């Protein structure tokens, strides 16, 4: 009833090309953003910021990057962890080796290095397709793991191979409270989400989708696969690299290559599969599902047990968490193989007709 676009006429090309063509969507998103920027800092406590919101935003950003490659361009990658690691270590090296390097610039340049490495490891995609490409991108994962473990230069000759950063600031704004870190991550996530949304609507995004849907046909109508695939790798790795740098700089503070292991790559891939391939919104849904749900289960299970008077041991909680989490993944994939984003849009469709469906 409320969610209905009757009477909203598009009278110019600009209004026709809007990201959110329906006025209610625009209001909803504006409210959501306002809530995230103004209300959340007042409501959330330190635990929420540090343990849930910041990791959620950073991993959502990484999932967004991966979604461009896998969801929009159809190139399966298992090297996301590696590209995150490149972003983190490149940003770290720029930050500690160059005096007076601004943090934001270091993070963005980290993304640029990651984009370069992404293009390099994307070259095989010109010849290899599908699952075989996934295996080829594993090479990136193992190579980067190896490089950051073995080559001492990358870790600034740290004895233990662990690196750390502190003293984050942005244009004179000292970022040390969790609230400020959250706003930094939120700002970057919003900017990149908008960029990505507009990119996938542009000609290059359409090229990616054409390649994804059928690369031969795309080549026949004049799309250069080399250009389309490598730009997808570059843009995706750039965003993933920025997320990796944020993960190291803002979330962990000190990290080792294990923070960007193959598990991270799989985690991100699951995020976009569950959230929705080829959907910006889906990246956020998937990240929320994968980041928040295990933590929520981990805390809710003992509380639930206490309600019925049962003390659940820590080990049992951890095992149950895995089982429920796994079962929920299966459940969601059966109910909606196209991910949570699809559920979301079905919901919107239904809402448009409600309360008078055909």
């Amino acid at each position, binding site marked *: 009833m409320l969610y209905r676009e009757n009477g909203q006429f598009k009278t110019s090309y600009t209004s026709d090309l809007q990201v959110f063509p329906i006025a209610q969507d625009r209001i909803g998103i504006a409210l*959501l953003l306002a*809530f995230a920027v103004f209300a*959340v800092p007042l*409501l*959330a*406590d*330190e*635990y*929420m910021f*540090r*343990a*849930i*919101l910041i*990791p959620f935003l950073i991993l959502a950003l990484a999932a967004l990057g991966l979604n461009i490659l896998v969801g929009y361009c159809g190139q399966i990658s298992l090297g996301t962890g590696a590209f995150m690691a490149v972003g983190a270590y490149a940003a770290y090296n720029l930050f*500690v080796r160059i005096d007076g390097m601004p943090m934001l610039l270091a993070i963005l340049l980290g993304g640029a290095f990651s984009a370069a490495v992404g293009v390099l490891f994307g070259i095989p995609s010109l010849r290899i397709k599908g699952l075989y490409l996934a295996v080829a991108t594993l090479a990136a994962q193992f190579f980067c793991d190896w490089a950051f*473990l073995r080559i001492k230069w990358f870790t*600034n000759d740290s*004895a*233990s*191979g*662990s690196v*750390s950063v*502190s*003293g984050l600031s942005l244009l004179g704004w000292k970022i*040390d409270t969790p609230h400020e870190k959250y706003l930094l991550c939120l700002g970057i996530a919003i900017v990149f989400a908008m960029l990505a949304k507009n990119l996938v609507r542009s000609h290059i995004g359409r090229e990616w989708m054409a390649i994804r849907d059928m690369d031969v046909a795309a080549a026949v109508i004049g799309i250069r696969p080399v250009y389309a695939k490598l730009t997808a790798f570059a843009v995706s790795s750039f965003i993933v690299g920025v997320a990796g740098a944020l993960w190291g700089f803002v*979330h*962990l*503070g*000190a*990290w*080792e290559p*294990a*923070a960007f*292991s193959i598990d991270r790559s799989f985690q991100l891939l699951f995020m976009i599969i569950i959230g929705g391939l080829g959907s910006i919104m889906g990246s*956020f*849904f998937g990240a*929320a599902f994968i980041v*928040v749900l295990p*933590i*929520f289960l*981990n*805390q809710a299970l003992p509380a639930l047990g206490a309600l019925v008077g049962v003390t659940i*041991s*820590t*080990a049992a*909680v*951890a*095992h149950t968490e895995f089982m429920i989490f796994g079962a929920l993944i299966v459940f969601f994939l059966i109910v909606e193989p196209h991910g*949570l984003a699809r559920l*979301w849009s079905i919901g919107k469709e239904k809402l448009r007709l409600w309360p008078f469906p055909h």
Partner: protein
Amino acid sequence: MKLTTLAFGAALAVSAVSAAWAQAKEQFFPVLVYRTGAYAPNGVPFANGYVDYLKLTNARGGINGVKVIWEECETGYATDRGVECYERLKGKNGGATVFQPLSTGITFALTEKAPADKIPLITAGYGRSESTDGMVFKWNFPLTGTYWDAADIILQHLAKKEGGWDKLRGKKIAHIFHDSPYGKEPIPLLQERQKMHGFELTLIPVTHPGVEQKAAWLQVRQLRPDYVLLWGWGVMNSTALKEAVATGFPRDKMYGVWWAGAEPDVKDVGDGARGYNALALQHGAEPNSAIVKEVLAKVHDKGQGTGPRDEVGQVLYMRGLTAAMLAVEGVKRAQERFGKGKVMTGEQARWGYENLALDQKKLDALGFSGVMRPISTSCADHRGATWARMHTWDGKKWNFTSDWYQSDEALIKPMIRAAADKYAAEKKIERRTPADCQS
């Protein structure tokens, strides 16, 4: 979706806050554990020992009357989960007293966070070696020894066995290590000693979790080292011993760090592990000590034991027990200054850890005679003691097979100083002034 998760989180946060109000005079000890995953065989006995000691403290009447409470959080040995646990527990029940992450990776991450939250970190027998320097690392306490001490003591033992440091010249030593900060930490010391004594050092990394070591042991077979140092944890240790059996490398030439010398590491290998040596971080398996008898009588006999009864007194159980004892004793020490029978904040407990003075009399009273040697910390030395000795697996149990050793201060002190200074420079922290030490 986002809204609902936020609402969920907010609800959780609210309930956490209201729970905090209900607390009275209770000292809160967060317990980071890993009871699942690849490192669980070693994580479980440690956690059980830790929690059993906290239970015993309450059975003894608390810390000068202050009851202790605790909450476990499962990290699975993963850094990001460890950080989440830290954030979850640090503010609960009036604030965490001290964190003991039992993971070098988590220690590194928390080292960046703890100073801001004013919560001390105890890393008894692990963590950053340079955090011994309390003038830079105000909140870190690598009590009872670091990996540099461990590596130095193993080399001292080898030198003694060979008949002097000069006899090590030309010997081949292979360092097989868990490829993480944990395994890499001793390398600078090994390299320093290599320069001094001219032995050949080969570094052989094993990737997490360490179940695949064929390549490493192939290297051992080709190299035929005189000694193998084993810096493993969890399944990596038992796998290494099995591979040593398969390769035919003599077990009595293998020397593990104190985290590679407990029952779970050798039990599965059984007879094959006979003769394998490992460092003992002061204590070994101590089933006959007074403290174990007290735990059995006051905790397990009351049906409150955390783990199985026959695990009490095993090496890692004892390590957990000792770690908890140090945590509690620090609070007791802090109470001497800030008021007996009061709940200590993390900041006050930090003073207690920095001024720990456990002499033999106190240890005897606690039931730790024969388990631990006296330890006293100061501003400059957050480690307190570096005693260790060797124990050897005879197929059934661990037996001490060497005298006590202490690490060579003359060698390690400058290394600590240099590494701490480098850290301070990177982080732009000033060394603490003597006046700050009094606070």
